[in-house]
């Protein structure tokens, strides 16, 4: 399950989607809008997204995780639009037979999502706003034209 939505995210639905009978552990990550960043008071966030490519890159992250860790399932939900303090922007769930793989794979997946999925956040403060520049995605060397 890989989805981009403007609505509130449903963790129960995602967890149900990644669980298998052989899953003994599920690690679920919540990215949450917090009230402060770099010493500035955040009022709310606004997310922009390139939806088709974001879904494609989420799937690429999932393939990378499957290739690296012994997991039984993975899913990602990302919310876009305006989000208030305390609301959940990102959910990543990973199931595995054992807990170490679930934790490590989930952490890796969140890191990779922040590196390559085309989503952007704007912080809105009391006295201004800024689109946050996070990671510049790696570009493959010369491709066939």
């Amino acid at each position: 399950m890989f989805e981009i939505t403007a609505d509130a995210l449903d963790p129960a639905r995602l967890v149900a989607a990644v669980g298998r009978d052989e899953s003994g552990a599920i690690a679920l990550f919540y990215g949450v809008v917090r009230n402060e960043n770099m010493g500035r008071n955040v009022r709310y966030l606004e997310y922009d997204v390139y939806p088709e490519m974001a879904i494609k890159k989420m799937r690429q992250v999932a393939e990378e995780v499957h290739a690296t860790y012994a997991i039984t399932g993975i899913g990602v939900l990302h919310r876009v639009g305006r989000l208030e303090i305390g609301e959940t922007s990102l959910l990543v769930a990973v199931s595995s037979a054992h807990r170490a793989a679930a934790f490590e794979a989930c952490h890796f997946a969140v890191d990779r999502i922040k590196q390559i999925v085309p989503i952007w956040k704007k912080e809105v403060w009391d006295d201004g706003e800024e689109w946050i520049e996070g990671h510049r995605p790696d570009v493959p060397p010369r491709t066939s034209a």
Partner: protein
Amino acid sequence: MITANVRLFAGLHQLIGERDLEMQLPEGATIEQLRNKLGEEYPLVQAFLPTLVCAVGEEYVPGEHVLHDGDHVALIPPVSGG
């Protein structure tokens, strides 16, 4: 001449006020040429160019990538999802 359909996001989208632009480029033009032309036509974009990455067909591509007529080119500033 070929036409590239350019899509803007985040700060670029807000700055230029458009989601989509059409750009005319010579036959065989590369991403690098598109970036240069973008900087000439929209001087406001120049500050973004050093960190901007381009995607064609929903894949990141290098500057040498050759464009074809009708290609969709997404201008991707550093991402900050999560």
